[in-house]
């Protein structure tokens, strides 16, 4: 449901069914709506059975990478020799993405239930829910819901009366996009600077506190109770295009669009239809110019590509981009692509952890070149310089922040070269940058 809007007939409402329903936030309200039945069901199974159902469902990571969730869980050691941990990644900071915030605000018990099921499946003693520091309201709501879950015996030493122990804690971030990267998130929980770590070793072998760890996104975990309740086959049947993309996905639509908000559709839904019908299209008198379908880290689509893009993992790859987090940024013909790409590059320059040279220097250099172009002081060779620099920033660092900066720059120059050239050759008036560098 495109909260704050009424659900559209073409939506497939699963995760967002109770968005806007304040009663669903409470333990009693959640139980009345069938909540915690999936956890009860899962706790009566063997952990391996739970993993098998999630594998069957085809659920893939909703944070951006799209890795099959059940397969990820199966990487955890079967024979437990050390403590295991689950981390729920609620550090939602990818520009264009605001779905996890609504999941936490409206269905906190749904997330707790999903975490508890995953925690049991991977045999973890503790779940850390890492919430970005700015999300004061989701933090407050999650804190209240966790206290309720402990009070009602959902969590604690005798979870759901089964004698099994499930502990879950909130961990507040403090303003760092990079902590949404899974290894940086673990560093941050450990009380360190949020620096990503080289993989391997992968978290399932050596994760938070050096112990086997699984990290999943909020939306991934919130989908799990529905899969346990209704079965892997049901979830797998939700697919409009490619069979390897299953289930529903929340798309956060924003930018130049009449009705921004979260829309839940079946995987494979046409991007053009989402913008035109569900979101009411671009503002009156405007036309669609471009789209970023998966949060700011993925390549930009032009109008034609946007109109033929199917919203699933494979459909986005076919158009040369990625589904990412499902943060859909819409640009109409009034958007200044050079300025907005500079603004994206500045985001990455600000958020670089500064460990790797290519990223620390490359993101800042990219911003300087783009600002020079905007100021009317660019040269023709600057575009080649940007492309060369972007190539040096791709696939060469510990994490993909640097690649993410390069993606909109490279696709932007390729698809909107004329706008860059207009600043360089003086046919477009220089545009000063408002604020700090």
């Amino acid at each position, binding site marked *: 449901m495109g909260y704050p809007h009424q659900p559209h007939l073409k939506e497939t409402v699963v995760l967002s069914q109770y968005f806007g329903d304040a009663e669903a936030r409470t333990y009693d309200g959640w139980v009345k709506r069938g909540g915690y039945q999936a956890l009860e069901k899962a706790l009566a199974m063997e952990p391996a059975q739970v993993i098998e159902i999630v594998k069957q469902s085809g659920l893939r990571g909703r944070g951006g990478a799209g890795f099959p969730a059940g397969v990820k869980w199966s990487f955890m050691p079967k024979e437990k020799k050390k403590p295991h941990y689950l981390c729920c990644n609620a550090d939602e900071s990818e520009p264009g993405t605001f779905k996890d915030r609504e999941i936490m605000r409206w269905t906190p018990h749904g997330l707790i239930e999903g975490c508890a099921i995953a925690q049991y499946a991977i045999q973890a003693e503790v779940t850390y829910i890492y919430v970005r*520091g700015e999300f004061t309201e989701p933090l407050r709501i999650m804190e209240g819901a966790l206290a309720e879950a402990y009070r009602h015996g959902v969590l604690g030493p005798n979870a759901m009366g089964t004698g099994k122990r499930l502990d879950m804690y909130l961990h*507040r971030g*403090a303003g760092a996009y990079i902590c949404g990267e899974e290894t940086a998130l673990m560093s941050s929980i*450990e*009380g360190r600077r*949020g620096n990503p770590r080289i993989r391997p070793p992968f978290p399932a072998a050596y994760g938070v506190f050096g112990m086997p760890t699984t990290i999943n996104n909020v939306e991934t975990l919130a989908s799990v109770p529905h899969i346990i309740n209704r079965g892997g086959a049901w979830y797998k049947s939700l697919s409009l295009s490619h069979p390897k993309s299953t289930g529903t996905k929340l798309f956060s639509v924003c*930018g130049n669009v009449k009705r921004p908000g979260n829309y839940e559709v079946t995987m494979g839904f046409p991007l053009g239809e989402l913008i035109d019908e569900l979101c009411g299209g671009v503002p009156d008198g405007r036309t669609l110019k471009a789209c970023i379908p998966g949060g700011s880290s993925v390549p930009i689509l032009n109008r034609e590509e946007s109109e033929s893009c199917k919203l699933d993992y494979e459909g986005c790859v076919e158009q040369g981009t990625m589904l990412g987090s499902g943060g859909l*940024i819409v640009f109409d013909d009034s958007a200044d692509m050079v300025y907005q790409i500079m603004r994206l590059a500045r985001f990455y320059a600000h958020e670089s952890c500064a460990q790797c040279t290519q990223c620390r220097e490359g993101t800042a250099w990219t911003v300087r070149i783009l600002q020079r172009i905007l100021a009317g002081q660019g040269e023709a060779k600057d575009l080649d310089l940007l492309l060369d620099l972007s190539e040096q920033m791709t696939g060469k660092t510990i994490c993909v922040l640097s690649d993410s900066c390069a993606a909109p720059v490279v696709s932007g120059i390729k698809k909107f070269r004329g706008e860059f050239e207009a600043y360089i050759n003086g046919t477009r008036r220089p545009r000063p940058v408002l604020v700090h560098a």
Partner: protein
Amino acid sequence: MHETTYEPVFTGDRKKQLDQLLPRFPTKRAALLPALWMVQQARGWISDHAMAEVAEVLGLTPAYVKGVVTFYTMYHQHPVGKHFVQVCTTTPCNLCGAEGVVKAFLEHTGCKELGATSPDGKYTVIEVECLGACGFPTPVMIGDDFIENVTPEGVPELLRKYQ
């Protein structure tokens, strides 16, 4: 050091609160971010003295604690205005006019530049990177309050609530 006397943060209830957090983690170091939040909630910012106290309480070194404080943008290393205003200007909000909202805050608070505190000490205004509420442009944080759909025209009335 401009502080001549330093009142420790972790005494009484706050010390108890911190001690209650420790069993959540296998290491004391992991309580660092929560401890720094407690300092900032108590004092409004995190001074070098406070960093040294946190280091002492958690068995870390002051330099280590400073290294962590400087990594995270939400920890204030200097005092800020009574109301700390953060305006999102990243691309999705920028497309919807967020820079106009920043200008309106700078104008109506009397803060001459971003990051500076107004002469009356009431406000500090900064730009912030993506607040994660892109469908509600422009989101603004004032202290711990998260406000959606702020427009330049709405800024004066909003500020009246934060005096």
